[in-house]
Each structure stands twice: as structure tokens, then as C-alpha cells.
């Protein structure tokens, strides 16, 4: 049985919870002033810190970004283990990852150390606690740069303070359909929060998947920032759900949901964008009770796993675009066909 702590709540709307902690070391210049030697020095310090502590070395495995293939690197981004910026320059950069991929540590990102912990559903307190413990363990040997008035010291003074960014990945199909996202996101920015599309192309956010995160790190504790984010998220969840009942009764919506499921269950080739839109429709159908025999969490995992680089990587082969589309359709069918 799964550890209950690992399973968050509100999974009909909240896909994933992520906590980031930004840290720097005292005796090495910040990244914009680092040369290759500094980067290597930092990587070695981080490796030593992990090796010295069995609680860490037992669960973390290191990957040197410079020796990864393009597919491997992009897949790390798709699985939210590293940032897109991180793979733009892989030289002298590395990442530690736990086997269950719930925690990672980027070394030499925009700041020296980026600790990340993520869990399914709405699970801010537990995700924070995991990152917090990891931070404490690393701090024992890395002694992060800190000032009692300024907090954790960062390259960019705007990010001083807790260095904590908490994010929720939300599925908001009804709010998106109602056209309310733009208004909500401009109101949220006044409250020090940001809401933006995850699979964004221009104005459009594919699959109605959004990221809600705190922007303020200074003059506020981690617990306050998390409580603040949670209360806003709760309001968004209520607003989203409030639209569901009416939508679920519309024949057009029922038709879209049924057709989407039918395509996922029978297509022979599928592009990721198409998959994402269909999965979003089906996920909505599950949430409002139109579809009963598939679970949201199955779709959540597929949304990650069906991305091009991750799909290719796990196939163990080089795939052409057509081969990828065939494989994607096969895997989706296998999982959803009853």
C-alpha cells in the first residue's frame, strides 16, 4: 500500500505539488561569475556532501548533464526534474535524483543548488517537509550562505529571503472554457502569486494545465507562503468545480468527452498535442462523473510519460516522429481500453 502521506488531496483539480529551494555556498562565486573550474568545484562539493551522508547517498543518484544525450536531457525537463534553462548549457552541470523521482537537486543552475521535491495532488506541507529535511542534511556539509536579516543569499537580490518557490500544477478546463483565466491571473499577480500555462504556445494553454506559484520570498515565512498559496488554490478549486455541474449537463460537452475517450481508446497514431487535449477532456469527464472506470491519476502519469523525449527514452530506441506517434497511440490504448 502507498504511504498515505505521498497521496495529496483534490486530485480532480490538482495534478502535482512542487517545492523549490534555492541555495548558495559562501566560498564560491555566484553562477554569473563562475568559470568552468568553479562549476566543477561545486559539483564535487555537492557530491561529497551526498556521499558523506548515508541517508542521502542511499536515495540519490547523480547524473552529469554534460554526458547525457539530447533525448535524456529533454526527458528530465519533461519529467520536471530539471528546468528548461538548465539544459541550455549542460557543461559542468549535474543533477541528483531519487529513484521515485520525487526529489532532485540541480547543481549550477541560476543559483548554486536547487532543491526540488514533488508529490501528486495537493500536498504542500509534506512536499515542503521533504525539501526541508533534504536542505538540512545538505547544509550540514555545504553551509549555505545566509544572513539573519536577508535570509538565504542569492545572485539576484529580488529572490532573497526563504528562497522557496511553491507551485501547484492545476487542471482548470472549465475556468479556461469560461475565459476567466486571464482576469484571475492578473488579480493573482497583485497578491504576489503567478498563474500561467504549463504547455503554453502563445496565448493558448494546451490541455488547460496551469501552474500556480508564489512570487514573494522575502518578509514571509515558508509556512505563511504555503498557507497563502493553499488558500488561493482552494478558492480556484471551488471556482473550477462550481462550473462543472452545469457543463456536465450540456450535450455538447458530453459528446466531446465521449468522443475524446473513444479516440484515445482506438487511435493508431497520435501526436502529443492531440493526446494532451483529449486527455484533458477525458480528465474533465472523470472529474464530473461522466466517465467512471478510468482514474485521474492514470491520466496524470500518462501526461508526463507520453511526452516525446520521455516516450523515446523509455522505448530504448531511436524513433522517428511517426514511430513515436504509433507507440504513443499503442500505449494509451493499452492503458485505457476496457
Amino acid at each position, binding site marked *: 500500500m502507498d504511504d498515505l502521506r505521498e497521496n495529496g488531496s483534490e486530485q480532480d483539480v490538482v495534478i502535482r505539488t512542487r517545492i523549490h529551494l534555492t541555495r548558495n555556498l559562501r566560498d564560491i562565486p*555566484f553562477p554569473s*561569475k563562475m568559470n568552468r*573550474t568553479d562549476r566543477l568545484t561545486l559539483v564535487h562539493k555537492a557530491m561529497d556532501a551526498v556521499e558523506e551522508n548515508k*541517508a542521502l547517498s542511499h536515495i540519490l543518484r547523480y547524473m552529469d548533464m554534460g554526458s547525457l544525450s539530447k533525448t535524456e536531457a529533454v526527458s528530465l525537463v519533461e519529467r520536471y526534474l530539471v528546468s528548461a534553462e538548465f539544459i541550455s548549457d549542460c557543461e559542468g552541470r549535474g543533477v541528483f535524483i531519487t529513484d521515485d523521482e520525487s526529489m532532485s537537486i540541480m547543481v549550477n543552475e541560476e543559483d548554486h543548488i536547487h532543491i526540488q521535491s514533488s508529490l501528486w495532488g495537493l500536498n504542500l506541507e509534506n512536499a515542503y517537509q521533504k525539501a526541508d529535511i533534504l536542505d538540512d542534511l545538505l547544509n550540514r556539509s555545504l553551509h*549555505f550562505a545566509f544572513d539573519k536579516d536577508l535570509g538565504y543569499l542569492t545572485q539576484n537580490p529580488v529572490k532573497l529571503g526563504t528562497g522557496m518557490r511553491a507551485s501547484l500544477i492545476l487542471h482548470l478546463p472549465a475556468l479556461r472554457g469560461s475565459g476567466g483565466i486571464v482576469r484571475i491571473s492578473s488579480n493573482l499577480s497583485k497578491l504576489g502569486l503567478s498563474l500561467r500555462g504549463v504547455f503554453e504556445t502563445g496565448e493558448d494553454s494546451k490541455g488547460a494545465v496551469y501552474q500556480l506559484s508564489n512570487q514573494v520570498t*522575502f*518578509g514571509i*515565512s515558508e509556512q505563511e*507562503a504555503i498557507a497563502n498559496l493553499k488558500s488561493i488554490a482552494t478558492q480556484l478549486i471551488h471556482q473550477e468545480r462550481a462550473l462543472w455541474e452545469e457543463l456536465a449537463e450540456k450535450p455538447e460537452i458530453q459528446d466531446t468527452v465521449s468522443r475524446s475517450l473513444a479516440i484515445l481508446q482506438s487511435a493508431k497514431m497520435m501526436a502529443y498535442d492531440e493526446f494532451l487535449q483529449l486527455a484533458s477532456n477525458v480528465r474533465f469527464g472523470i472529474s464530473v462523473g461522466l466517465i467512471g472506470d478510468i482514474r485521474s491519476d492514470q491520466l496524470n502519469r500518462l501526461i508526463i510519460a507520453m511526452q516525446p523525449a520521455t516516450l523515446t527514452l523509455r522505448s530504448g530506441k531511436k524513433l522517428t516522429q511517426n514511430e513515436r506517434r504509433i507507440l504513443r497511440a499503442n500505449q494509451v490504448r493499452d492503458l485505457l481500453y476496457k
Partner: protein
Amino acid sequence: MLCESCGKNPVTTHVKTIINGKLTEYLLCAECAQRLGYGNLLTELGCNYGSLLGEFFGEAERTDSVRCQCCGSSFNDIVRSGKVGCAECYHTFYDRLIPLIQRIHGDTNHRGKVPGGSMLRKPPQEQLSLMRRELREAIRTENFEQAANLRDRIKELEGGNSHG
């Protein structure tokens, strides 16, 4: 002392720069400093291209002799790039950075975690259960020194509770 570049004029400018990761110091006369581009740091400050710090410091410092011992940054470097060079810079330029930080963040202080101190701010029960988890992990991974350490701290806390 004479300029290291021309060997003629007296030294007026100490220039520290990082070459191949090594901090190097040059002693230059005013003329050579200008010729070699080090004068630009002072003259370019009026126009700061989109750098956040630059916007806050339209009127930049005219004296730029202090450089961070660790990374070699001057305060003007920080203003120009919008990026602090290293942790030590915050110490070196504290008095000059504070007004800027207040303009970004308001007149307030850090209220969050203190390194290694997260456990201290948790209620005792939660703190104990965390430490017991750490202890189990330490035993499981045969990290006995750490385990013994944790066991002592748990005993201390439990003792403290029963008497308090």
C-alpha cells in the same frame, strides 16, 4: 609606484579582475585605466540597460575602489549586471545594498527558515517524530554514529517534555 602598463605615470587605479578563475590585480595610471576599458565602469553608469539594480541606481557611485575579496566584483559591477557576485559581496557592500534591497522588498526582514534550524521551530511532537524517522533511516543505512547522536537528542527532548 609606477603604472604596470606604461611604466611612466604614477598609479591611481587598482584593478582586480578574474582571469582563468584566478583573481589578478593590476596597478594602473588613470590614463591607462581609461585606455584599457576600466574607466568605462565609471562612465557607463548613467545608462543601465534594463538591469533592475541599475534602474534603482540612476545616480551611481563615483568611487569604485572597493572590490569583493572573494569574487572581485565592484559595487558598480553589481549595479550594471543586476547580479550580486558572491555571498561575500553582500558583506562587502552591505551598507550600499541595503537601501536597494529595501526598495525592492520594503522595510522588512527575513522571517523564514534559519539554516539547520527548521526542527527548532516545529512543535515538539512533530519534531520528535521527524527525529525518530531520521533515526530509523540512520539505523537502516548503518549510519551508527549519526544514529547514536539522534538517539541522545531524542532522549533529551523526551526528558525535557516529561519535566516541563
